[in-house]
Structure formats: C-alpha cells, structure tokens
C-alpha cells in the first residue's frame, strides 16, 4: 500500500517536503498506516537539511475513522515537536467532515492556508 514511490515523499521547493497519505485510515488498517507514519517521521527528521515544512497530502485518503484521525493527529503533533511545520492539504470533503465530526478539525487548521497558497 505504501510503496516508497519517489513522488509520495518528494521534497518540494525550498525546504518543504511532501508526504502523501493514501488508502483507508481505519481500525482494520491502523497497524500498517502507523508503520508508514513512523517511517515518514524518521525520514523527515533524518533528512539533511531538515525540512522546515511538510505538506501532508490527503488527496488519496479513501476512508477514515476515529482511529485513523487519531493516528494522523499523532503524526502531525510529532512533526510539530520536531520543528517541522505540518500542513495537511488536498483533503477530500468526506475526510474533512469526519475530522470535523470527531473533533479533530483543529489539527487541520493550517490546511486552508496551505491550499490557498497552492492555488
């Protein structure tokens, strides 16, 4: 599911890095998704120079539940702690609604600006 495709984690301009999340982010697939996130944190932190910003692309997320929201929230918080500004972007409407319903909307707060910037 998470093949190390170059475009999924390619550095963008300047010091921005891109991480693409895809597939279902639900309880049943949580273990695999967590492994992927852990790898991404290590890659981001070990990259020299360390990127100041990471775009978290959720365009390919097909489904999400509370367990998945929690994983992404942990991931974003981890990045923040590592001085990497995480910017969720390209969030499908359904995913955004679920985040919102489950009270995780706050963690996506930076996404609007990011998408604005992208446009």
């Amino acid at each position, binding site marked *: 599911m998470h093949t190390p495709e170059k475009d999924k984690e390619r550095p963008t301009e300047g010091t921005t890095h891109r991480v693409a999340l895809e597939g279902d982010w639900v309880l049943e697939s949580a273990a695999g998704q967590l492994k992927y996130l852990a790898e991404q944190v290590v890659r981001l932190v070990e990259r020299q120079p360390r990127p100041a910003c990471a775009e978290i692309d959720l365009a390919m997320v097909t489904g999400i*539940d509370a367990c998945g929201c*929690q994983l992404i929230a942990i991931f974003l918080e981890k990045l923040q702690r590592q001085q990497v500004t995480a910017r969720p972007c390209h969030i499908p409407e359904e995913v955004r609604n679920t985040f919102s319903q489950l009270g995780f909307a706050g963690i996506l707060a930076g996404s609007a600006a990011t998408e604005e910037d992208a446009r």
Partner: protein
Amino acid sequence: MTTGQENIDLGRFSGVFFEECGEHLQQMEEILVGLRDREPDQEELNAIFRAAHSIKGGAGIFGFELLMQVSHEMESLLDSLRNREIPFLPGLIDLLLEAGDLLALLVEGYRAGEPVACETVDQVRAKLRRSLGHDSAPVAGEVAPEVSAGSGHPPLARYQITFTPPPDTFSRGIRIDGLLRELAELAHGEFDCRAELMELPELASFDAESCITRWHCTLVTTASCDDLYDVFMFAADHDQLTIRKLAAVEAPVRNDPTAPKLPSSGPPPESPAQGLGVQSTSVQRPARGDTAAGPGRRAADSEGSIRVNVAKVDQLVNQVGELLITQAMLTQLSAALDPVANEALQRCVAQLEKNTRDLQGSVMSIRLVPIGIVFSRFPRMVRELAAKLGKSVQFKSSGDSTELDKGLIEKIADPLSHLVRNSLDHGLEAPEARLSGGKTASGTLELAASQQGGRIVIEVIDDGAGLDRGKILAKAAERGLPCSEALSDEEVWQLIFLPGFSTAEAVTDISGRGVGMDVVLKNVQALGGRVQITSQAGHGTRVSISLPLTLAIVEGLAVEVGQERFIVPLNVIVESLQPKAEQVQSVNGKEVVRVRGEYLPILRLYRLFGIEGAQQAPHRGILVLLELEGERVALLVDALLDEQQVVVKSLEANFRKVEGTAGATILGDGRVALILEGGELLQMHKRNS
C-alpha cells in the same frame, strides 16, 4: 438539625422520613405508570394525593422548604383533579411523574446535603401551576427560566461533557463517530466537539488500535443529564465520563436559605472564562445499579431491613469462603484418621461441615436481591420510549421476586436496557403495521425471570416483527462474514452478536448507539452468562440471558486429569460413565461416544490444557457428560474425586485469564484447581477439531 424551640434533635429522625418518602414516591410512580394514559379513578387519585400529602407534612416538620413547596403544588393539582375542577389530560401523568422525580431529587439532595438546581424546581413548580390554570408568571421569588426553546418546550441548558475512553475503545468496536453524532443530534444549535491527545507516544512502540484521545464537547440541549449519560451507556464507565451542566449567567440562582446547602468542596470553575461567565452546577448521576429505584426512592425489597455497607457483606462472604476451605482441609485430614479411634472427632467435623454450609447459604442469601428492583425501572422507560416512537406497547413482567446476586443485578441492568430499547425500536411495529399484519394495535414487551437449576434466566420477549433472516444474512455477506443460506436460524441469529453488526436502516436515539448486541453479549459473558435468541418472523423475538446464581461459590465435581485437578460445575453435568471400547467411534473424522443411541463428541481435557501423563483411552477413563449451550458433550477425565462447594478465586485478578476456566479454587489439600467454564471449553474444542 436542632429546633430552637424544643431542643429535639430532629436530624435523628430525618433518616426515617427519607425512607418513608422513598416508599411514597415508589408507590406514586407505580400507580402513575400503571395508568398508561387512562384517567385515574378516585381511589388511585386518593392514593397519589395521600403520598404527596405525607411528604409535604414531613417536609414541613423538618423544615425542608423546597420539598414542601413542590409537594404542595402537586397536592393542589391532585386535589383539583379529584374535585373535577380541571379536566384530566394524559399529559398530566407525565407532569406528575416529573414532579415525582423532582421530589425524589430533593429528598436525595436533603439527605446528602447536596445541591438541587433551583431552576429545575422552579420549572416544575411553574408547570404545576400552569396546569391548574394559574397565571403563567413566575411565582414569587422565582426567576425566569434561564433559556427557553419556546413556549411549551423543555428548557435549554448548556452541558460540558468530557469523555475519556479506555484504550481498548476502538478495538471493542465502539464507534466514536456514532456517539458524537447522537450527541450532536440532541443539540439545539450549539454543539462543539474537540479531540485532545492525552499523550504523544513513540510511534515505533505505539499500539495503533489503542485509544489515547479524550473528547470535550459542549452542547445546548433540552435533553436531561440522564439522556446524555445514556448516549454513552455502553461506551463509558462512570469514571470515564464527566457531564457538567452549565447554567447561563443570566439566570441567577435564587438565594434560598432553606435549600439544601451547596457542598463546600464543589468543583471550582475550570477556567477564568467559566468562572466569570457561567454558573456551573454539578449534576451527579447515581452509580449504575442504584438507578433501579431512582434517587430518593426506596427499593421495594427493603421492608423491615437494615442498611449494611456492601463492602461489609463482601468481607463476610470472603471470610466464609476461607472458612469453607479450612473446613474442607479438616474433612480431608480427618478422613485419613482411624474412624474408630477418632469417632468423636469425625462427628464434630461432620457437624462443622453442616454448620459451615448453612452459614454459607445464609451469607450468600444476604447478597441476593429480587430482580424486580431492575425490572421496576422499565415500565416508565417503555412508556416514554413508546410514546416517543409513536408505538403502543403493553409492558409485562413476571418472576420479579426471583433473586440474584447483588453484583449481578447491578451489572445486568444496562444490557437489559439495551435489549428493551432494541425491542421497542426495531422489534415492535407501529400500530398501523401491526393492524395490517393481523395483530392487535398494541404490542407486548415482557420481561421474565426464573430460576432454572443453578442459573437465573432473564428473558426479553416481544411480539413484534421478529428478526429478518434474509436481512441478517445479506448484511453478513456484505461484511464478508462466512455465512450461507444453509445456516440454521439459531446460527443466523448469532451473527447479530458480531461487533458493529446492525441491520437497522437508520441510527436512532433509541437504540442506534454506535455499539450493538456485541456489547450486550460481552457484558453478559463477563458475568458468566450466556445469551440465546429465538425468533419467528412476524411473531416476535425472545432473548434469553442465563446467569449464574452467584459468582462467589460454585457447586462442583472435582475431577483428576494427570496430576491436575479441575472443578466441573454441577449445573452442567448430566451424568458420568465409563464407556466400553466399542462405544467410542469415529464419525466424519471426529471422535464420539455413543450413549443410548446419541453420538456425543469427546472433549479431551488433557489435550485442551496440555497435560501430560493423563489417561488417553476413553474406555479406561471416565466420561463426564455435560450439557453446554444446548449441546451435549463428553469430557474425558482420569477419575472422579468428590463433589464440593468451592470458593471462586479470580485468576484474572491474581494471574491472567485462562481460557476454558471461570477461575480457580483452593482444595482441601491446599492444591489449586481450575474451575471449568463450559461455554469456553466448547469453543476451544470446536476450534481444535
């Protein structure tokens, strides 16, 4: 409390008054709920009036001003009804029930010295006055309702809810989105939800299915605090949920010198904003299990009783358990002595055994309480939910006096509530549908309890539409579960116990709670119980919960397997036999024993528990025939030892869960024996074969 005039310490007598109030309120509710929507006759009105009048009189003596005022308003309404000064309307029953609830809350408040929100008192008093046709302006000293959703609607209140679910919430199949959606549906406009990570774990070592999120919600709603707790009924224990009612600052709390005093240790405002802008009122919900009779109400079973702390009873039960073990040791030691030389000693030991058993029976009976305590909460629930759903339902109960261990009673209330809600919501049809199906417009929902051998069977029976076999199979197929048309009805019904399984087309606030029958099953199994369903399309559904009489002591047969000993509960044993070699056969590759023309599978205990040196040939050992979950099986053991009552010790508390066992016990010789759990043994056997 001491009155200045007579120097009599009335406080000494207030306990009796509270008890009497409980009885009056219980009686009042029974009559009102029994009315359904019909007009009470003169005798019933008199009985309710007398109850209110007695409460008012006592409240006056003790100076419980609010209690006196509310009961007075209630009395006035009842008097007007009695004298036909106002017409009877079905809505008056709801109002009287609401007033009864308030009296119960006030009684509890005065008893505990805890606050009861004045605005709640004012609202009910205002309703009582309005029903009498008095002016609708607030009564003297009252404040205007804090926020109103509009004329005739319940008042709006703002609640702050903090939900801290346990780590296994996700893996238990609890749907947080369902819970939050249901909460949002209760909100009138304002609903705010915020998730907060309680920790930031190391990703490499984190369990992806573990829940470490806490949810904070604020909502404005007309729902009661109990309604909000009900949303989390199966998802949260009490310590995982905090619900605070936040009264708007515009509604000042009246300074009533006679009101129950506010506790000095009340929670401080959580934030400066809250401290400045809102008035916080803690809403205490009674502990689960205490809700059966409701706050301030007295359970019907406690006539002529004294109140004893449950911890003391538990201590007594444990001590008797230890005594039983010591007695068993003495019996075993004395049995090895010369019976002639020690005749007197052995007589004494036999007498000790008898006395110990009698004592144990007496002590265990202290913990037994009638199931009616739980059943009594349902007439009102059924009445209110049926009205909400637009259904006509007649509630019946039987076997109310059947006794069950108090610990079980407390824990069975929630699963029963869920089953009753399910029946009302999904089982019983609306009147039109029933009529078109050739049934009476009114459905029947029955709760029945009975003792069957060493178990208590509680049944929830409805004469509704029954389970839809096709729908369940389709849903199972959709979810990728192994199923086919060849499954028996019983097997199909078992599918609904799978986590998250629901065929309901719409999630409702009655039974669609994001969790389902799997939680009911899990809760019942945790009590050593089993759930069985029988259903017939168009005729209804019967859900049977079978529970052990008590969890503390088991009547069992000690058996030997290799060097190990096990206790087989007597209630599952049918008989034991030593088969002839030719009785043991193989059918479809499975080992069976033929007993009077019936072929029973053989469960080899040594194999299930990995015991070496045990007898492997059934015709050289003993087969104990068991009836487990409606199936008969033969348990292969080396030898039968003796029949005894054993004290159940929890393995989980002291070691870990061991599959196939319900716990362990200490035998007379000091050895530890595992107590077998039939249902789990059967599952283990099916898996292994």
